[in-house]
């Protein structure tokens, strides 16, 4: 057992730091730090910079153009990116669809789609959830009927993140209604520009417009866009969901978030001393810091096991639950730290104005982030679903 970074790890960290120092613009990192809405161009630009460096796909094998980093390197990279307030890499193509294609796609599909994910030619979104199929995903109803060399798709997907930017969507569709739910699902790749697709934004409680409803009316999808076997989509969906997701624990986000809380609490005055000297507030900060230190080590242990061939399924569920609890606690602390300045609706306040944010600590829209991050314990399998998975794996039933 050795908890220290090796010489190589430290050299790698320096390399990442130098890269971020030269390639990440102040303008972009400030936007990320202050929780501003990133444009499509912001995100595509950052992807292109990472791709030029060969660092866009840390979890892809080298043969497909990935960097094939080990667990520690990925941890270092995530950590450094979060501390530097780099934009988050959009995961739908890179870490969700790509592993499925690499494992279950045919050669033609791999050759065609994978390079386009790296180059940014395609922007993928995910067509999983439906209004009636959330936690019970297998009850999905969007139907695909084979007609000659096409499937005809009808139905509705929802909570489609960045659907407004995407030109492609990977979808779970029902291809057989006569069998057990899980046995009649297929995995289809659909061009968002096909006639019959309509994208409608859903405005979230913090005012953000990142998720959408996607409607399909007689949408024709060529059969070569079927991944793997017809009616085996559930297997691929599960693979995607339980496939080792780097950064599921969000250690980097939490580390950066905690640093921000400390910074604000040092400047904020309460009762003639700084808020961080208020023992009640400071104790909450310390407790979450302790939890985060332990989780960071749990994350490394699990990711290195996974790299060594261990099964990350149930451990990923554990990391997701604990990671989201910690992140949400930090969001709550940030909200409290700014006191009355949590109240202004920042994006409304700055709209059409060149005045600085009405916030003496330059903290950004902490209340909006708090509300927005209530999503993290809901999406990707709610924390209750994760607890169910853990119990099932550990106790059967």
């Amino acid at each position, binding site marked *: 057992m050795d908890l220290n970074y090796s010489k190589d790890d430290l050299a790698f960290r320096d390399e990442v730091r130098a890269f971020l120092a030269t390639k990440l613009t102040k303008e972009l990192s400030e936007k990320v730090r202050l929780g501003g809405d990133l444009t499509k161009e912001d995100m595509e630009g950052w992807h292109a910079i990472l791709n030029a460096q060969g660092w866009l796909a840390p979890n892809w094998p080298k043969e497909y153009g990935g960097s094939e980093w080990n667990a520690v390197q990925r941890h270092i990279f995530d950590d450094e990116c979060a501390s530097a307030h780099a934009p988050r890499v959009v995961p739908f193509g890179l870490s969700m669809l790509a592993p499925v294609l690499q494992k279950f796609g045919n050669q033609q599909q791999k050759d065609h789609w994978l390079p386009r994910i790296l180059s940014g030619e395609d922007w993928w979104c995910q067509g999983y959830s439906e209004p009636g199929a959330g936690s019970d995903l297998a009850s999905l109803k969007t139907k695909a009927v084979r007609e000659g060399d096409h499937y005809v798709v009808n139905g509705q997907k929802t909570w489609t993140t960045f659907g407004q930017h995407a030109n492609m969507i990977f979808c779970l569709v029902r291809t057989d209604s006569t069998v057990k739910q899980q046995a009649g699902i297929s995995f289809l790749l659909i061009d968002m520009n096909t006639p019959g697709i309509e994208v409608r934004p859903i405005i979230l409680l913090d005012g953000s417009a990142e998720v959408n409803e996607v409607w399909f009316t007689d949408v024709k999808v060529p059969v070569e866009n079927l991944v793997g076997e017809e009616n085996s989509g559930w297997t691929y969906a599960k693979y995607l969901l339980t496939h080792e997701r780097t950064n599921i624990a969000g250690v980097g986000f939490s580390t950066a978030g905690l640093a921000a809380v400390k910074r604000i609490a040092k400047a904020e005055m309460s009762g003639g001393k700084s808020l961080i000297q208020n023992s009640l507030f400071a104790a909450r900060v310390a407790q979450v810091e302790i939890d985060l230190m332990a989780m960071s*080590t749990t994350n490394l242990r699990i990711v290195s096991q996974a790299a060594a061939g261990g099964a990350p399924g149930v451990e990923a569920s554990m990391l997701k639950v604990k990671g989201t609890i910690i992140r949400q606690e930090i969001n709550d602390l940030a909200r409290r730290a700014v006191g009355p300045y949590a109240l202004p609706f920042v994006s409304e306040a700055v709209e059409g104005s060149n005045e600085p944010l009405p916030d003496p600590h330059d903290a950004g829209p902490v209340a909006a982030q708090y509300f927005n991050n209530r999503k993290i314990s809901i999406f990707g399998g709610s924390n209750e679903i994760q607890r169910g998975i853990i119990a099932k794996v550990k106790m059967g039933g």
Partner: protein
Amino acid sequence: MNFDLTDEHQMLQDSLRRFLKYSCNSKTRNEALSSETGVTSDLWHAMAEMGVIGAFFTEEQGGFGGTGADIALIFEELGRANIVSPFLDSALLSGRVLAAACELDRVADLIGGDLQLALAHGEPTSRYDLNYVRTTSVNGILNGRKAVVVNALASDVLIVSARTSGEISDEDGISLYFVEKDAAGLTIQDYALIAGGHAAEVTLDGVEGSLIGEEGKGFALLKDAYAIATVAQCAETLGAMTTATELTQEYLVTRQQFGRPIATFQALAHRMSDMLIEMEQARSAVIRAAGYFESDERTRDINIHAAKNLMGRAGRLIAEESIQMHGGIAMTQEYELAHIAKRITMADHRFGDTDYHLEKFMALTQP
């Protein structure tokens, strides 16, 4: 960075686990619990022969280990097997004080299994503060009272702290002494502990002591010895929590109510999942406390305080939830879980509790 056990540690863990599994059962535990002093000498000698005590010390000190990782590994196994024996207080805590003071003959006796020790440091009003010493020593004559001295009755000789200079809470001016068990003016009021073992209130009324190490410089020795003892306590608690969690898991899948295993009820299944999540947190906290033990003092202490705080919280969850989910059976003296749950809970009262370590952590991380 590497989380694998070394080959040596893997072998030690395997042989210790096997040994403890065969040699410790409820019969040997009840013997220890009902014995006059809380020590079963057969187990003590067998463990010493296996080299367990030697692994608490470095080669220079006459042992063959002594790192945070060595010690965490052993105490996790002791906790897992729910061993009631004063390895932590008699061998590790007292032994590391003596080793640091270069009392290597005594350390050799300890490693051989032929010496029982007790460290009489805490006082009735010191709570968990190591610097608080009211007991005085004037020309080697000690006066004062020491509180909850674990293993005092079974010990061959006591190690007693006393103030030779300075104010009551000064770090400087604390000296350490050997006090013989038959010394005039020494009173040992022995009692059993709720989670097993024995301790005593020790009264010193003009007792003669012989100085250990340098006069007035005892604090640094105590601080280091308590630091490793805290790591050991965390590891031991982790082992006990592992067993509690396994017993509970087993119970949930076997116990039938309403015609099905109670593990299938979501109210219990989700709480079991939370226990398992906290077990991973606890394991990581112990790995850090052990793994950073040889780092600079600040890093070492931050990780020890973090671990003891986290173990206090996670331990309470595991102990209380294990009892609750078992139901009535966990309330019985006869069932193993009851003893383990008590042990986990009482660990929070050793070497500083959850709040104490949170405060220490804050002092180091929020200056």
